[in-house]
C-alpha cells in the first residue's frame, strides 16, 4: 500500500508544477542558431548573383543523391561585374529525400549553401510530393528576402 501512496504523492506533486509544454501551432518556441532544417542557397548581395558556381561538389557528396546542379558561363563575369567565371544555371533539391545531414554545407568551397535555421525550414508540409522539389529561385528566395537569421558559418 505504501508504494501506491508514494505514487499518488508524486502524481499530485507534479500536478502543482508549472507546465513545460507550449501549444505548438499557436506558439513557436525559438529554434537554436545551429538548427538544421533544409539546405538553401545564399545570395551574394554585393554582386547580385548567387554564391553558387555550380561546381557539383555537393551533388557528388550528397549521400541520398537528392540534388541536381547545372553550370553555365557567368554573363556578369563577361561584363566584369563579377569574379565568378562560372555560375549556377539550374539547381534542384528534393526535400522529400534530403536527410538533413549537413554534408553539402561542409563540402561547399564557396559557402554558397547553408542549412535553414528558421521555422520556415520546418513547416513545409505539402499535398503533393513534387512540390517538395525546390528549384533555384525557391532555394534562393529565403536569403534574398532576408528571412533567415545570421547563423554560424560552419
Amino acid at each position, binding site marked *: *500500500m*505504501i*508504494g*501506491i501512496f*508514494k*505514487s499518488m*504523492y*508524486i*502524481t499530485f506533486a*507534479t500536478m502543482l508544477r508549472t507546465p*513545460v509544454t507550449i501549444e505548438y501551432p499557436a506558439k513557436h518556441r525559438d529554434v*537554436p542558431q*545551429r*538548427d*538544421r532544417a533544409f539546405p538553401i542557397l545564399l545570395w551574394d548581395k554585393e554582386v547580385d548573383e548567387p554564391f553558387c558556381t555550380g561546381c557539383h561538389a555537393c551533388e557528388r*557528396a*550528397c*549521400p541520398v543523391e537528392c540534388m541536381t546542379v547545372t553550370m553555365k558561363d557567368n554573363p556578369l563575369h563577361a561584363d566584369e561585374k563579377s569574379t565568378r567565371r562560372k555560375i549556377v544555371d539550374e539547381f534542384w533539391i528534393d526535400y522529400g529525400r534530403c*536527410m*538533413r*545531414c*549537413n*554534408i553539402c554545407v*561542409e563540402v561547399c568551397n564557396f559557402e554558397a549553401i547553408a*542549412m535553414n*535555421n528558421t521555422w520556415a525550414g520546418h513547416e513545409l508540409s505539402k499535398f503533393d510530393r513534387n512540390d517538395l522539389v525546390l528549384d533555384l529561385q525557391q532555394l534562393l528566395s529565403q536569403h534574398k528576402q532576408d528571412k533567415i537569421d545570421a547563423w*554560424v558559418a*560552419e
Partner: protein
Amino acid sequence: MVQEHELEPETVDIGVNMGPQHPSTHGVFRMVLTIDGERVVDVEPHIGYMHRGAEKLSESMDYRAAIGFQDRTDYLAQFMNEQAYCMAVEELLELEVPERSEYIRVILCELNRVTSHLMFLGAFGIDLGYFGTSFTYGFRERERIQDIFEEVTGDRLMYAYFRPGGLAWDVPDNFVQMVRDVLPHTRQGLKDLDLLMTQNEIVAVRTKGIGAMSAEESINWGLSGPLLRAAGVDWDLRKDKPYSIYDRFDYDIPLGSHGDLFDRFLVRLEEARQSLCIVEQALDQLPDGPIMPEKMPRRLRGPEAEVYTAVEGARGEYGVYLVSKGGDKPYRLKMRSPSFCNLSALRDMTVGSYVADAVAILGSIDIVLGCVDR
C-alpha cells in the same frame, strides 16, 4: 441425451497475431503467439518490416558521408552508433582523436544513454498497462536533454555530429553551463520515476519473477547490456574493454540478481544515474583544444584491413565490423546490433508466461526496430 464428446471438452491452442501494427510492439514487430488459454506456449517473431539496408548503403559511400546512416539504426541511442562507427574508421585510418573531442563524445554519449533509458522507463510503464504517467514524466526530462543535443548538433533526432577523427564542429560556448543546468532536473526526474514505480505494488506484481533468465542462459543467448547485467553478469564494455576515455572516470556498474523484469527496470534506472555521474566528472575535466586532428586527410582512404570496434550502447554491445580493400569506401560494414541479439532470446523468456506479460517482456528487452532490421 448428452453426447459423450460434450462431456470431455477438448482444448485447442490458438494462434494470436500481435503486430506489426499493434500499439505496444515498440515499432513494426510481429509476434505470432500460440496460446493455451491465457498461457503462451510458443512465440514466433517476425522481423524485417523496417529493413532499409543501412549496411549496404554505408558500403556505397565514402567514410564521411555514411555517418548519416549510423544514426538511423538505433534511433534512440544515436551517439553511441556514431561513436562505434567513427572508432572503426579511426582505427582503420589510424587517426588520433583530440582530447576535447573524446570528452565531448563521452558527455554526449552518456546523456544519450540517459535519454534512452528515460524512454525505456517511460514506455515500460505503458507496457505494464498502468502508467501512462511514467511516459510523460520520462519524456518531460528527456526533452530537456534533447534540447541540449539540438543546441549542440542542430538536429533533434538524427544528429550526424561525430566525424571520423573528431566532431563536426565545436560545442557552443555555454555548453558546460547548459548541461549543468539540466542535470538537477534529470536527477529529479529519475527520482520521480523511482518513487512512482519502484515500490509500487502493482509494478511489483507485474514484474517480479516474470520473464526471468539465468546468468548462464543469458550468456548462452549472447545477451548484452542491461539485460545481461540484470541477470547478474558483470560485463560492461566501458569497464571490461575500456574504449575512448572511460577508464578516467569513477562509476559503478549496477547488477541485478534474478534477471526478471523488475531487475531490468532497476538496472536501467541506476545506470542512468551512473551516467549522470560520468557526465559530471567529464564536465569538470573538459579540456580546451582542437576538435579535429591536425593532420586530417582531405579524402579518407583506408588500407587493406579489417577492424572490429564495439561500444557499450544503451541496449548492449553495439559493434561495427569494417572490412576495407583500400579506397574510400568500406568493402563490408557489419553492424552488431544489440537489439537483434537480445531479441533472439524472446521465445525463451516468454514461453510459459501470460499473454499480458508478453508485451511487458518485449518492452523489457527495449528493442529498437531500426536497430534490429537495420
